[in-house]
């Protein structure tokens, strides 16, 4: 019994230490992305705002910086002035190198969300122009 009590005390201390440490570090749960309704009436600027949220939620920032830093993939801070709508949409729909297609799982964006993302990318170093319905998804 003596050994049993000591075992319980050590187990409580060790598991308590790890739980304490886990609670001491900054907390931020990960929430699954929620779909937002994007309409043809939205201005390119409003779409770009939505696109920024999608960019963050979809995990694009894991590899791409938008502030001129070199991360795993190319920096996108000037992409709006370097690529046209077709080129941006083409990359998002088909993927490139290790980047998966944005319209397929796990990213799984809708056509409207991809349009909003293109508007956001146009805004980086350029001006958003695209509206819902402007981009035709590949057949």
């Amino acid at each position: 019994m003596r050994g049993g009590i000591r075992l319980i005390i050590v187990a409580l201390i060790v598991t308590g230490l790890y739980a304490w440490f886990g609670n001491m570090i900054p907390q931020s749960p990960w929430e699954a992305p929620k779909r937002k309704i994007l309409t043809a009436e939205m201005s390119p600027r409003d779409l770009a705002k939505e696109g920024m949220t999608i960019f963050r939620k979809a995990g694009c920032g894991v590899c791409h910086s938008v502030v001129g830093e070199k991360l795993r993939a190319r920096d996108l801070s000037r992409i709006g002035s370097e690529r046209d709508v077709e080129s941006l949409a083409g990359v998002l729909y088909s993927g490139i190198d290790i980047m998966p297609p944005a319209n397929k799982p796990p990213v799984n964006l809708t056509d409207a969300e991809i349009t909003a993302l293109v508007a956001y990318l146009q805004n980086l170093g350029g001006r958003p122009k695209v509206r819902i319905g402007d981009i035709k998804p590949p057949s």
Partner: protein
Amino acid sequence: MKKVIAYLLVVALLVAAYVVGRAPVVEAYKEFPLIGARSAVWIVVQVMLLFAAFILAVPVFTVIIEAMGYLKKDERYDKLARDFSSLLPAAYMVTAFLGSLFTLLSFTLYPKFTGYMAGIFRPTIYIFFGLIILETALLYIWSYTWDKIKKVNHLWLGIFLNLVGTLVMFVGNAWTSFQTSPAGVDPSGNLVNLTSAIFNYTFWPLNLHRFTANVSFGGFICAAYGAYRFLSAGAPDEKAHYDWMGYTGVFIGIVTTILLPFIGYWFGVEMYRFNEQMGITFMGGALSKIWLLQALVIAVIFIGTCYYLWLGMDRIPGSERYRRYVPYLSWGLIIAFAVWSVPRAWVASLEEMGAGGHPIYGRLGIMAPKIAAVNIAVLMVILTFLLNRRANREVLPGRRVYTYAQWAIIFLVVLVNLIALYYSYIVPSATRIKISIATFVLMIPAIGLIYIFDGLLLKGSRKLGDIRWGHMPPRSQYALIAVTVSNIWAMALLGYGRAAARLNWHVYGIMEDTSKYAGLPAMGEATLIISALTLLFLGLISAVFYFSGTGRQKG
């Protein structure tokens, strides 16, 4: 007493069925009272997996110990093997109960997902249950024929039992690995090829990782059992036996643990091959904090084990000659784990990944130098074992050349890893990965050569005295218990990490989690659940130990 437990288990199962059955239906999901569906399944499946690990691992090293006893003609090994095996029947019963409860919870709380998985893997489910029946029958035959059939035949029976147990694990791993890296299905999730679905990207790394981790886990559990009995024992011969049991358990535990980083790295590589984004999220994205906790827990396991072994040198005559190396070994371990614990990124959500690295450490936390640090930590553990082996031996003068050869290898390994560690910070990621693989590959022949030279070195050496088993301070046993609890906690943490890599997908990219639990809890909540289920497992396994011990005494 066993009958009472069996009745209680059946009643508990029926109560759980009633509670779950009454829960309101929410689309493809049902809710579980108080703790929620996700936590209920999480706790039950993890505790079940820990028990499954135990019942798969114990026969593996029991057969090894039994074989050693047979070959060395040493009764102690046979007694130890029998001690371990006596824990199995009760542990099997609890595992079967938890397995039934998990199946029940899965079908009732997640009916759509479980139905989908059952549809994809239907033939393997029949194989799984067939193998479980065969394994149970073999276990009982193996347990009850210990002294009744020829030792060689009993050993073969044990090997066959292990083979069947491993196959059971492989079938379960096919389902789990499919969730992480699905294959053999079309984009809508319809089955195209069952063989591809089974042999998906992460199937083999998961098999090897779980098999090795299970043996390691079983070793540590037996070490903790030895520690508990040592602390309770009064008679010197009893203390000596349980001291030896603890040492044997921790030896099995740590030797297999040092293989795990290598296999884990392979698992990571396969995950990247399947889907780069998943790999990045797993290692440096939303799950980055898991690796900080992992570094802390593994540090406790490595340093705790070495601390136990360093204390154990006091019971070995002649060990005074080697005590001066202990501070260097401990500092080597501390520095290695300091490198390992530098976070790659400090995010718990993908949204925060805009800046890429850690706000303070920047690129210091990249993975490749950590692998060099792990290699050095592994080397420190191996050196600790070498000191234990050599402590009561006087080496023949003519054989000292092998010590120099060992030092040359150790120097080379440390030098190569320090260079790799330095260059990993400044070269591109593709080069970093190649450097890491090279340092891993170097470690395997290096460890092999160190042990070969050690065998040659100790050949014909003179014994300076017998090991004084049982002469250990209580703090050494607390270290063993802390190491074991940390091992259980690490298994639960990394089990969570592997499942969390799927983010909001039941089957990655195929079946999305649309329940209110889609997403991941904060690290604090996760660690509370992991701690709770670790304590629950310890409580249950202690009950198994208690009833097995009572049964043995009656026998």
